[in-house]
């Protein structure tokens, strides 16, 4: 399958055309958030208070980078395990979040929310933090500076490589890919 380029924010037409296994180069802006930032945002949602970011049509990248060395906007910045965000993700998807980037399986609840509200989950290569950092051109601190690497940042990315792992049609590349190559013995 050819690689396609997508520019954020995500629109519905783009999402409708994405299928599992599609390799994608992302361009534009991404928000970062992981465990601690998600917990804070979910607390705000439950208290009916505004979030520090407008998640509508956006992508959240699950990452906690290493400190930026001199002359670089960011250090190594590969994906963390998405499953730790599963208990938070459906509420953000319901608010209009359209994409997530991480590594590893999503829960049935997240997959259901992706189908219902039309959102996709992209896998980036775990451990490829140095490679992925080269695709990050700018970094802006958006919220929760006290969380250090767990703060919410906005990354401006160019040709950031990901692959569609879950689409809005219930496709799951983890399930399908493993089934294809499993040998019964």
């Amino acid at each position, binding site marked *: 399958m050819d690689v396609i380029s997508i520019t954020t924010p995500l629109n519905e037409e783009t999402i409708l055309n994405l299928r599992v296994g599609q390799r994608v180069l992302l361009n534009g802006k991404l928000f970062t958030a992981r465990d601690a930032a998600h917990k804070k945002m979910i607390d705000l949602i439950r208290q009916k208070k505004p979030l520090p970011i407008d998640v509508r049509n956006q992508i959240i990248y699950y990452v906690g980078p290493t400190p930026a060395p001199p002359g670089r906007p960011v250090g190594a910045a590969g994906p963390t395990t998405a499953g730790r965000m599963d208990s938070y993700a459906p509420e953000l998807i319901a608010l209009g979040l359209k994409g997530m980037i991480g*590594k590893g399986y999503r829960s049935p609840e997240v997959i259901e929310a992706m189908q219902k509200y039309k959102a996709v989950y992209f896998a980036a290569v775990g451990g490829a*933090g*140095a490679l*992925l950092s080269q695709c990050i051109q700018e970094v802006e601190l958006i919220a929760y500076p006290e969380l250090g690497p767990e703060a919410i940042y906005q990354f401006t990315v160019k040709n950031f490589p990901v692959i569609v792992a879950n689409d809005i049609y219930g496709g799951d590349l*983890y399930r399908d890919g493993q089934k294809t190559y499993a040998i019964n013995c």
Partner: protein
Amino acid sequence: MRTVDASVISETVAGLCIEAATVLEEDIEEALHKARDHEESPVGKEILTQLLQNAEIAKRNKIPMCQDTGIVVALVEIGQEVVITGGNLYEAIAQGVRKGYQKGYLRKSVVNNPIERKNTNDNTPPVVHYKIVPGDALRITILPKGAGSENMSALKMLKPADGIDGVIKFVLDTVKAAGPNACPPLTVGVGIGGTMEKAALMAKEALTRPLGQRHPLPFIAELEQVLEEKLNALGIGPMGLGGRITVLAVHIEVFATHIASLPVAVNLNCHACRHKTAVL
């Protein structure tokens, strides 16, 4: 008797921390190249290509291969003729970690205790295991351990009646449950025998063996091979997205055990299998 100054130990540990985070060991790189040649899944091949490019970029730009630069595990072998001067050994190692993580722009990923969870902001304290050995050398191995693979590791006290089939099943179940989370293709360290903590430590030590080097006991070497074949038949593949290469190697360590015991520990390591050793 031979003296080693604490400041030399700190400097050495700082250097090992940075190198372990930024430079892929040659044997691992070679194994990833071979894995790419053998991988049939196009997605798997692409992932292995990205991992090799990642290692190149990290080395060239002196940046960490992965953002999770881990909690530091130090395996220290102290020759019984060595005397440490100018400070205490543990603090010298901790000082080295502090220095390395600051100087190398590595992520500080350690919290003060598992309940309060306040970041210590210098990646200390490290987890240090000491072994007193004959001779006058001081050997330090640094394993920065990321949570992705460490969290999916497991230990079980099997019954002797479970036998080799029980051991195989437990290793397979552990790798299956880890799926993509531990960042495959994995190196799998297995400790069999001893007591609970002995098995766990052997599993950790097994990760530092040159990749693919077989255990000297033929029946253990055979078990390593059987496990590699069975694990690669699972189809989990690079990053769990399906493929032929789920593990790069299985290393087993064994120890005598109680007549009623069969402890098995499985320590998983990601595709980078980071570790660096220095001998002083």
